[in-house]
């Protein structure tokens, strides 16, 4: 499905990562693989450092910290917020919505429209789409889009297929109406028949968590994982991305009537460096225009990797400059979506550390 909007723009972007950092070299001893094989993977996939929350830290903790930072710096007035969207696969609780928890902790107005969306790696594109839909309403002028995940808490430390790439993070993006005429193009596809490719089998109503689902199982490939943990069919996901993403971008640019070489930056979801470089090669996009440096520095934080890549690679440049940007998210669902927009002249664009001392959840 294709989408088109006008008169909407991102006005501020903040990503927050736990100060707590773990290194692949230290973790290698947990994996039942020869050191040489793991080191080769480090080189190819970009495994190095990743940021992980400490025990008890939830998405609402990261988000509240980030929003309080913006409030205290005068970059966001809490009274101006009309809607709060939280996109996460690791909510504080099954109920209530994490957006409601954040609203309550920050004592925001009862008129704020709070909405949770269960989405992952395509969650930034989907969250922006939802923000644009909301802004069609005259009563909504400013939307706060929060992407956040703490999936390290649901990933087996003995699963070399998943644990080294996982990162925890949140982002706060402000979306508003504008008088600017620039058009935003987007598209989205979903294929629920492949939903098992990325799944946490236990913990919902289908298979409630129990002592059995918490037990580590030998998966037969030297990895150990419980049903409570994230399960990723790496081959299926890799193939899905390589098959579906290039034509999606081609369709997007074609619909917008824009040539690929006139796009300044391609900010794609970052599962690992190898996958992104293969996509860039196939689409003949210079690697420098499609950054792939988030996994090696912070880990894969699902829907947060796109805003984090923007903050990490462009940062303060976005305060005074403007770029043509192509976004693409792809993953759980399976879901794949992309968006072409003009990004710049932001009121803030930062990357912030969530300090270890604030590790206790308040919710």
């Amino acid at each position, binding site marked *: 499905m294709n989408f088109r909007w006008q008169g909407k723009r991102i006005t501020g972007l903040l990503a927050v990562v736990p100060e707590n950092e773990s290194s692949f070299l230290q973790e290698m001893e947990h994996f039942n693989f020869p050191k040489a*094989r793991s080191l*080769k*993977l480090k*080189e*190819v*996939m970009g495994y190095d450092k990743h940021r992980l929350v400490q025990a008890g830290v939830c998405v609402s903790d990261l988000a509240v910290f980030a929003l309080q930072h913006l409030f205290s710096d005068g970059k966001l007035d809490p009274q101006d917020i009309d809607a709060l969207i939280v996109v996460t696969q690791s909510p504080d609780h099954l109920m209530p919505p994490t957006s409601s928890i954040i609203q309550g902790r920050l004592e925001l107005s009862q008129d704020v429209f709070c909405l949770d969306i269960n989405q992952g790696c395509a969650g930034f594109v989907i969250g922006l789409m939802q923000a644009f839909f909301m802004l069609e309403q005259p009563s909504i002028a400013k939307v706060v889009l929060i992407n956040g995940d703490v999936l390290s808490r649901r990933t087996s430390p003995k699963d070399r*297929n998943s644990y080294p790439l996982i990162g925890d993070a949140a982002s706060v993006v402000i979306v508003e109406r504008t008088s600017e005429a620039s058009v935003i193009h987007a598209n989205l596809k979903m294929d629920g028949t492949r939903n098992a490719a990325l799944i946490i089998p236990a913990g919902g109503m289908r298979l409630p968590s129990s002592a059995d689902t918490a037990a580590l199982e030998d998966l037969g*490939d030297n990895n150990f994982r419980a049903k409570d943990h994230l399960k990723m069919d*790496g*081959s299926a996901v*890799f*193939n899905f*991305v*390589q*098959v579906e993403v290039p034509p999606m971008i081609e369709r997007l640019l074609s619909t917008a009537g824009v040539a690929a070489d006139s796009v300044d930056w391609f900010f794609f979801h970052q599962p690992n460096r*190898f*996958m992104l470089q*293969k*996509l860039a*090669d*196939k689409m003949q996009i210079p690697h420098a225009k499609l950054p792939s440096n988030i996994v090696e520095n912070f880990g894969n934080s699902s829907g947060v990797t796109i805003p984090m890549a923007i903050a990490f690679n462009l940062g303060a440049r976005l305060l005074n400059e403007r770029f043509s940007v192509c976004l693409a998210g792809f993953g759980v669902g399976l879901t794949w979506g992309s968006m072409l927009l003009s990004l710049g002249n932001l009121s803030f664009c930062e990357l912030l550390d969530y300090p270890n001392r604030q590790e206790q959840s308040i919710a």
Partner: protein
Amino acid sequence: MLEPKLQKIADLLQGIRPEFDFSNGANFIATGMLDSFDMITLVDTLDKTYGISIDGEDIVPEHFGGLSAIAALLGRYGVRP
């Protein structure tokens, strides 16, 4: 004794999984000699060795089951090992 072009591929595989003999005709995927991460490591090695970029869509098990299959894949990229 393998043909030289297949021996070159077997040598590259040996560098990735030194514990296996890749000249014995077994299906590397079915027997577990190569897992999905080994396939990625091999593609990275082939890309760098031959100055090519194997298409992501080609990174599927059927192209890595044996020396002849890998040689055929390389042939599609104009490589004669």
